[in-house]
């Protein structure tokens, strides 16, 4: 089964969507090739501390004399990694769980949804802090925590879509051909239900990046990676004297999360099954 042909054309029509997609592509390039341009350890001291932006240090240096631009470039990798992996894990988990809940109905549905609600009502940030504080820092742990807290949103959407699609007559038509139920769920229903789920997935990337930045701001993320949040936490103490330590990482986080959100919006509009057909 091929994806609907109008998706790419539709994306191109959405200006914000295009801009976001381009920006994200740029970030990916930076993540992949940045270290080539800035070879060497970004954590190494390269110059005197607290230099203003300009000259050989475009964005200045931090309190230990490390180049801020280098740190930002390396930070892209962390943010994208955490964001994408966490969002991917949350989407996969949420979709599977939500689809089964929607398709099976009955007590299976109720139980799963109660569990999802349990995860949703918990104060996300506090839970993240507690888990990481207990288990110790580490990038994968952070990813796991974020995924664990995000899957209920996806599950809810997936469940709703599966419920909607399973009412349609074509499902019955296939059932009358004797196709087994599990196959109907995965080959007939799911492909028609994932549109909104994918859109939500991109939104979760933004959310995950923010959460990771917050955790590393508190020093709870892995200490041996360069993260935008870590720079921010340093900048906090020198908010007025060394404004560049707060402004640049802050802008980077803002721009990245915004880009993913806009992309998610554009995708959501496009993949909305209620949209008029071309």
């Amino acid at each position, binding site marked *: *089964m*091929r*994806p609907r042909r109008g998706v790419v054309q539709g994306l191109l029509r959405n200006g914000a969507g295009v801009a976001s997609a381009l920006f994200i592509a740029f970030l990916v390039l930076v993540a992949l090739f940045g270290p080539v341009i800035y070879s060497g350890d970004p954590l190494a001291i390269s110059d005197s501390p607290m230099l203003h932006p300009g000259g050989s240090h475009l964005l200045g240096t931090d309190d230990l004399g490390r180049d801020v631009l280098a740190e930002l470039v390396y930070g892209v990798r962390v943010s994208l990694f955490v964001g994408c992996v966490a969002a991917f894990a949350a989407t996969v988990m949420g979709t599977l769980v939500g689809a089964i809940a929607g398709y099976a109905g009955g007590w299976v549905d109720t139980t799963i949804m109660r569990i999802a609600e349990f995860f949703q009502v918990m104060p996300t940030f506090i839970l993240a802090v507690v888990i990481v504080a207990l288990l110790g820092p580490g990038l994968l742990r952070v990813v796991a925590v974020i995924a664990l807290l995000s899957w209920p949103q996806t599950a809810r959407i997936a469940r709703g879509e599966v419920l909607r699609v399973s009412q349609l*007559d074509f499902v019955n*038509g296939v059932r009358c*051909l*004797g196709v087994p139920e599990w196959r109907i769920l995965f080959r007939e229903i799911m492909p*028609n239900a994932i549109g909104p789920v994918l859109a939500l997935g991109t939104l979760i990337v933004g959310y995950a990046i923010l959460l990771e930045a917050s955790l590393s701001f508190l020093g709870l993320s892995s200490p041996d990676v360069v993260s935008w949040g870590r720079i921010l936490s340093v900048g906090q103490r020198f908010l007025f004297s060394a404004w560049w330590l707060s402004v640049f990482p802050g802008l980077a986080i803002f721009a990245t999360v915004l880009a993913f959100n806009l992309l998610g919006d554009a995708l959501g509009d496009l993949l909305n099954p209620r949209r008029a*057909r071309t």
Partner: protein
Amino acid sequence: MTAPLLDIRGVTKTFRRHGAAPLRAVDDASLHIDAGECVALVGESGSGKSTLARIALQLVTPDSGEVLLEGTSLATLDASALRAARLAMQPVFQDPAAAFNPRRSVRAILRQALARLPGADASDPRLETLLERVELRPGVDYLDRYPHELSGGQRQRLALARAIATRPKVIIADEPLSGADVSIRAQLLNLMGDLQRESGVAYLLVTHDMLVARAFSHRVSVMYQGRIVEEGPTDVVLAAPRNAYTRKLIAAVQSLEPVGDVAITT
């Protein structure tokens, strides 16, 4: 006396609802179809006719009663026999918009049906022949299209193509003409008639329109609030209805005759 092709005996189905009294959709309803016949199941919304059709198609399990295909109760069949039985009874649904997976091409839709038939040829030429049989010509033009690219009438033809792909013995059509324009309806009826002549397939035609029943069925069963209130050969029932509700249905149609004769005779 040979057993009927499809024999629905005394089925009852009650749906439980949240915060409302249980709904007895079908109440001890019986219906039978002989090979090559067309039986119309006529009723208004809420009569239970769609539920009865779904019970026949094994999409809904009745609380009591049984459904027999060629004398054998479907409830007693094992998994593989049941699969074969399903292929012998194919549906055509009302809403062509929701009748197909929007992400499957016409080719994929027909292939999926043919694949269930052991040893069937699902090649493109075979699919084209199938499409041309339902007058979607030339077949090759339609293979790569998607359901939303077809008109309502074309989609219903595709639905018929998929239905006959597995060489069923009976086609259960739930309001197949309701979404179609007047001129298309006549075309579809002609097509259904042709298919019956060629393959001897029987029809269970579920409809709210007595005019359609008059045009296309040998026998008619009238359903009201879950019960079959009258049944018999179509011309007999229409000429001399015994049940008050049947008379009401006939009167309603009479008042909508487009031209000429007011009396409803075949």
